[in-house]
Structure formats: C-alpha cells, structure tokens
C-alpha cells in the first residue's frame, strides 16, 4: 500500500532542529470506508507528526474528504484504527473529535449568517460562568489567539456582512478557541483571493511554529508545495505515497495523483482579434436579494477568442452569466449580440440566436436530475424536438445516442435518470447539449470545477477547439491558473464592476490579484 513513510526530514528553516524530535500525533491505519458502489477509502494509512503542516493531496473523488470525515467522527469507518496522541480513539460524532482536540474547517462554512463573529465562535461552548455567557472572558481569549496567529476578524460584525476570507478566519478562530491540537482545513483556498491565500499561509506557518498540527486538504499542487512540510497523496481511495515537500516537485506529485504522466498545460495559440460578437453596454442588474450586483458592466467578447473573467466568487459573475443567458433582468444598459439588441429577448430566443451556457450550478441549474439522460440532452432545445406540440421520441433518442457517442458520456443507457451519472459525466452531458446546437457564444462558468484531471483536460481542449472555429467563449472561473492558461484576454470583476481587461501577454497573477481585490493598476 504505497511507498510508506520516508525518514523524518527537516522542513521550514527555523524548525529544522526540532524536526528530528517530533512525535507522531495522528496515525490512521488501514482505513476502509465503503459507500454503495464506491470504495471511498481502501485501506488508507496516514500518519501526521506533531507541529507539521501536512498536505493531503488528491483529485476530486480520491477520498481526501472522506478520510478526514472519518477522523472527525462524521463517518464510521468500515475497518481500520485511529490513534491520536498515542491512544486508540473511536469518534462517534464531531463532538468527540472536538473534545479530543481536533478541529475542522469545512469547504462550506458552518456559520450562522445572522449572528456576529463572536457569537458564532461561542456557539455551543460553555464559558466558565455557564449557564451565563461570559463575553468579556471570551473576547479577551479570542483577541489573544488573534494576535498570536495573526488572524484578525471584527468580532462584532455579522457573518452576513463579511467577505468569504473573513468568514474563513472566523471558522479557524472557532476551532482554535476550542484548544485544538490538530486543525483540518478542507480546500481552504478555493474561495480566496491570492492576497488572502498568502495571509492564510502565513497564519498556518505561525500555528505550526507554535506546535499546532495542520492537515491541509487540497488538489492544487502549487499550494501544497508552497505551504506544507510533508504531503500524502491519495489516488482512488488509496494512499500512494508520503513525500517530504522540499524533495519533490509538481511533476512527481501530478504523476502520483493521476497515476500517469500528464500534460500540465494545454497549447493555446493566441487568436487573431476579430469582430465583436457580444457587447455589454453599461449593464446593471440586481442579485436575488435585490441589491445591485452588476454596476455598469462594459465588456466585449470577440469572435475567435476566449475571454477569461477572473474574480473572487460572489462579485457578480453569476449575475453576469444569467444576464447573458436571459434568466436575469437587466435594470439598465444594453446587450448587443451579433449586431442585434437582445436586451429584451427571452431565454429561448437567445438560444436560437446562438448563445449557449455551461452554468455555474451544474446540478441546480443545468439539469433536471429526475429526468433521463436523453431528456436532459434536449432540456434547452425541446421545442425543436416536437411537431405540432407532440414530442418526437424517435428523434430524441437518435439525438441522445449521437451525443453520448460523440462526447463520450458514460451511461448505461439514455433512459436512466441523469442523477445517477458522475459529476464528470454530468458535465459532459451539459457540454454535449450546449455545443450540439452549434452556437456562436459559449459561456463556460467554472467548467472544470470538481472534475478529475482527465475531465479537466477534456473540457479545456473542447473550449480551445470551439474558440478556434471562430466562435467566442466567455470563461468564468475562480481558478486563476485556468484563466491564465486558456484566455486570450482577461477581464477582472470586482463588486459588480470590470476593474480592467488585460491582454494575455501583459497579465500575470500579481496584476490580476490586485484587480481581484479591488485595487488599481498603475499606468505605465
């Protein structure tokens, strides 16, 4: 089972002398967790030393989160043993794990949005004066922790008014407040700007210096290399190796993760700029809560290009997607598509004009889970598959069979419910449907989120080929690497405004990062 432990090695500069004496804080032995149809953990051995930052790396579905949920008491393992601080433990609930000194910050935060940070941190905690709340005591303790690790939050602010980064800091403080010895962070950077990520990494390093142990779950190679001391790689539910970070590299990690050599980047030729296909002129739109989410967007997408839209999630990307698709009302401004004003047109007319979309919420918006695969393949085109109001089932089936073949959708039959497909196949289904009507513009919103490396490769290649046919792609993504790799031009959105549009050559992560956090670029 994997190339087991390498000898203890040194890591982060100053820690070097202590390194050799570190004891093992956590040992998970031969963990097996079976879900119906899937072996999520297949005899995983995982060992973490006190005071280290240990990366847990793997593709989506490799079993990282399952392994940590077993540790945190959310799942009972079907087999295997857990030793924490030398003792054999069995956690029946997160409560047990917290008591033992294990904290976890989930990918989706578990905060009460209408309560203040302070109350969220105290939620469920008994202060010394219990049953009375001792806010003074709590506040001074939290402030001490804040200072110690450099994690600042405004304790009296409500969660709802906080940025995602700040909410994450509240979650971390919540764990620290409970005297954790081991802190698990599940994909913590997926919602952060580059600057916030830097800040998080600094805090993690300080925690490690203070003797706290951190498990850092990620699928991003670069981050694992940047912040961890050691890395354990999971593949298909098995541990395939534990490496000392400073002795490894991106290539080796990618090979371990995927099990074969992978092309880390895709060739994309810079396109020759052609005429504008879609132009947004001073577009305003509200979000679901009735607040202005788009504040005067001006943006042009040209034929033959991929225009990347970078930004931290929640800055208006979703609203922009919906405004172009036609499911969200434009308050002010115009949309010109292919020389035609489409501001007042409905969704169906826009589909007919050639606007396709891979939506951000694939399952919530992109498909009807209880309908069959073939029905989902005509979900946005079904009027074209009917004559005088009656559905043409023969044509629907032929259409489905063609697309399943062409796009390699893995399904036992076109008649099975679409909800039974895997995430990657659902994405293929949506891409197949959206490309099948031969559109002019494709909006691709987080198109590779949650896909495995092979799936990502596939989707990216499709987007590139599509743009090379003289059509346009609006690529909305939180993954800066993806944006940098695929885009001809990069627009950055911040609080509903386009802060700048950079040509591919002049863009670098630093410039984009500044724009993403609302800064301005100095004129050169």
């Amino acid at each position, binding site marked *: 089972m994997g190339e087991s432990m390498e000898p203890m090695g040194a890591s982060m500069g100053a820690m070097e002398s202590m390194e050799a004496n570190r004891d093992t804080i956590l040992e998970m032995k031969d963990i097996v967790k079976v879900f*119906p149809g899937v072996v999520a953990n297949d005899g995983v051995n995982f060992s973490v030393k006190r005071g280290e930052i240990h990366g847990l790396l793997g593709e989506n579905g490799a079993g990282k989160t399952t392994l940590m949920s077993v540790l945190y008491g959310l799942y009972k393992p079907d087999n295997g043993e857990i030793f924490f601080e030398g003792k054999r433990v069995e956690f029946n609930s997160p409560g047990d794990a917290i008591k033992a000194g294990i904290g976890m910050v989930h990918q989706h935060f578990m905060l009460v949005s209408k309560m203040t940070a302070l109350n969220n941190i105290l939620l469920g905690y008994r202060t010394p004066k219990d049953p009375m709340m001792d806010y003074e005591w709590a506040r001074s303790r939290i402030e001490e922790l804040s200072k110690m690790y450099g994690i600042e939050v405004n304790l009296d602010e409500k969660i709802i008014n906080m940025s995602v980064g700040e909410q994450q800091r509240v979650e971390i403080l919540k764990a620290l407040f409970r005297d954790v010895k081991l802190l698990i962070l599940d994909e913590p950077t997926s919602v952060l700007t580059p600057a916030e990520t830097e800040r998080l990494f600094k805090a993690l390093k300080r925690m490690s210096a203070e003797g706290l142990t951190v498990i850092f779950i990620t699928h991003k190679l670069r981050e694992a290399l940047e912040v961890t001391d050691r890395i354990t790689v999971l593949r298909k539910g098995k541990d395939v190796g534990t490496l000392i970070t400073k002795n490894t590299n991106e290539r080796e990690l990618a090979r371990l993760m995927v099990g074969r050599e992978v092309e880390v980047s895709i060739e994309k030729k810079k396109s020759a700029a052609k005429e504008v296909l879609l132009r947004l002129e001073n577009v305003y739109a509200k979000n679901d809560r009735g607040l202005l989410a788009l504040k005067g967007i001006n943006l042009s997408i040209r034929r033959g290009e991929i225009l990347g839209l970078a930004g931290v999630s929640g800055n208006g990307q979703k609203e922009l997607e919906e405004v172009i698709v036609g499911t969200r009302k434009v308050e002010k401004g115009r949309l010109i598509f292919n020389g035609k004003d489409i501001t007042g047109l409905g969704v169906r007319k826009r589909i007919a004009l050639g606007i396709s979309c891979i939506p951000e919420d694939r399952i919530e918006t992109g498909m*009807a889970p209880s309908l069959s695969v073939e029905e989902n393949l005509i979900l*946005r085109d079904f009027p074209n598959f009917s004559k005088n*109001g009656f*559905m043409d089932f023969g044509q629907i089936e032929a259409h489905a069979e063609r697309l399943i073949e062409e796009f390699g959708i893995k399904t036992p039959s076109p008649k099975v419910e679409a909800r039974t497909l895997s995430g990657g196949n659902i994405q293929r289904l949506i891409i197949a449907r959206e490309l099948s009507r031969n559109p002019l513009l494709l909006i691709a919103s987080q198109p590779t989120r949650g896909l495995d490396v092979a799936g990502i490769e596939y989707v990216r290649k499709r987007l590139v080929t599509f743009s090379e046919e003289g059509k346009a792609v609006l690529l909305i993504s939180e993954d800066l690497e993806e944006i940098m790799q695929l885009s001809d031009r990069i627009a950055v959105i911040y609080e509903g405004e386009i802060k700048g549009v950079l040509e591919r050559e002049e863009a670098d992560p630093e410039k984009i990062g500044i724009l993403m956090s609302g800064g301005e670029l100095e004129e050169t």
Partner: protein
Amino acid sequence: MQIKIERRLETPKIIYVIIPIASIVASLLFVGILLLAIGVNPFEAYGVMLTRAFGTKFGLTELFVKAAPIILTGLAVSIPLRAGLWNIGAEGQLYMGAFAASWVALYFSPPSAVLPLMVIFGLLAGMAWASVPGILKAKFDLNEIISTLLLNYVAIYWVEYLVYGPMRGKEVYNFPYSDLFPDYAILPRFLGTRFHVGVIASFIIALVIYILLKKTSYGFAIKVVGSNPKAAEFAGTSREKMIISAMLIGGAIAGFAGMMEVSGLHLRLRAAVSPGYGYTGIPVALLARGNPVFVIAAAFLFGLLYVGGSAMQTTFGIPVAIVDVFQALVVLFIIGGDFFTRYRISIGGDRND
C-alpha cells in the same frame, strides 16, 4: 448482527411498483386490526365489500359511478403534482364546479343549451377556484398546500349557505337541497342504473391527459418544472406560466367532476355533494405517481372502498369513515415508503471485504 441504512445510488424500477402495493396491503392490515377491535371479522367485512361491488349489476355499475369522480380528482391532483405542486384543493374546486353547474341548470335557458353550458361553467368555476392558489404560488411563492386546503372550506360553506338559503328548493321541506334539475339538465343514464355518461367522459379525460402529459412538449415542460424549476427557467420555460396552467387544468377537471356529480347523480345541488372525493384524489395521485392511466386503476380501488364502505355500514354498522382511515393510511405508507426509493436497509454481519 448489524442493521445498516445506506443511500441508494440507483433506484430499481421495481421499488416503484412494490411501494404502492405494499402500502395498500399494509393499510388493509391496519384497517383489519381496527375492525377486529370493534368486534368485526375483517375477512368477512372485506368479503362483503367485494361481493357487494362485483356480485351484482347494481354493485358493478355503482363501482364505476363512484370511481369516475375519483378518476377526475386524481387527475386534478396529478397534473399539478407533476409540476411539483400539491393541489389539496380538488374538493373545493369540485364544489365550485357543482355550484356553477347547478346555477346554470336551475336558472338558464334555452333547454338545449343548458347541458353544454353546465359543462363550461363547471370547468370555469373549478379553474377560477384553482387559479387563486396558482397565481399566489407563482407570483409570491405562497404555499399552495395551505391556500388550496383553506379554499376548500370556503367552497364547501358557500354551497351549504346556498342550499340553506338562496338556492333552497321550494319542494324540499327543510332539507338542504335545491330543487331537482329539469330533465334537460340531467346526464343520460344507461342500463336502468345510475351509470351515467359522465363515467365514460371521465375515462376519455384521463386518456387525453395521459397524452398531454406523456406525449406533448407541454407535458415535457411540466415535468422539467417539477424536477427542477431552475433548470426550467434556464431552458426558457417560464416557471410561473407552468405553475398557473397546471393548476388551471387540474381545477377545471375537478370542476367538471362537480358538474358531473350534481347532473349525473344527485340531480340537484345539495350540501355534501362529495363525500371527500377531492381528498381521495391525493392518495390516488400518489399511488399512480401522477400517471393518468394508473390514476384510473387507483381510482377503482378507492371506488371499491366507497361502495364496500356503505355495504359494511349496512351489514356491520361500521361507519363509512373507515374509508377515510384507509385513505389516510395509504398516504402515510406511501410517503413513508419514499424512504426506500432513496435508501436501502441491509441486515447482516459486518462486511469487511
């Protein structure tokens, strides 16, 4: 030994057949226990039910007469159900249809136009009654379960008010009845029984709705809205329009059921036009999983209960309310059975393979 509850990845089709049948069997068992408790042999009681319904020409035609309005209310619940809506208001829509048809029957002329007008007014009244919850749901997301349910009481009391007051007949003494309808306002009957032409109409309506839901693009759009309203919007199908139209069609069918009951059976407007057919439509639609053809089958089951229920009353003195108990049990078992479509339970030792 260990009992494990696991999420299903795929639901075997057979589950969808087993659940309704098991729900019916379990309900029969429970009602059987109730019967035992009041000192009646359940086998005897169920036997009487069956012989009454199938033993005589009268029983058999009564079965059709009772099943017909249940087919219609079952459809009235099924159509909105496919769009993801609970129409608990078929009872009220039925009463409004009955009222509108009676009004035409008693006060309209010329005679030749009266029956067609009764049908049209019945449909429209049911529609109007269903439109209120439909529009409120579509525009303001008001819970349709509550609005449809409450409107039932309004409709039932409205009809009661009429038959005790303004529409009470001149020759009915103190009964809460209107006058008998004139002959030209009565649906033709066959075989010297109460088997009226409305029964045949009910079957035709079920088939038409079957085609509408299963074969047309409108039916497809309804299904998409029911499966995922956001996906429907994304596909350019207006959720609002589909919600309102599904409620309108459902209401129209329930309204027709009301017209049929007064014109085919009671021959007048009266209090208690329906013994709760509108509510019976709910378990019928659930058993049929919204499929109009299965609605017919399920409606016959409940028709049998209504026919048999009155037989049990006359033979054993059991209140007809036992039918309501049965209905409620079926609903509970089906909703409970839904668990098994999503989870499976395995009993056995540890599986450490």
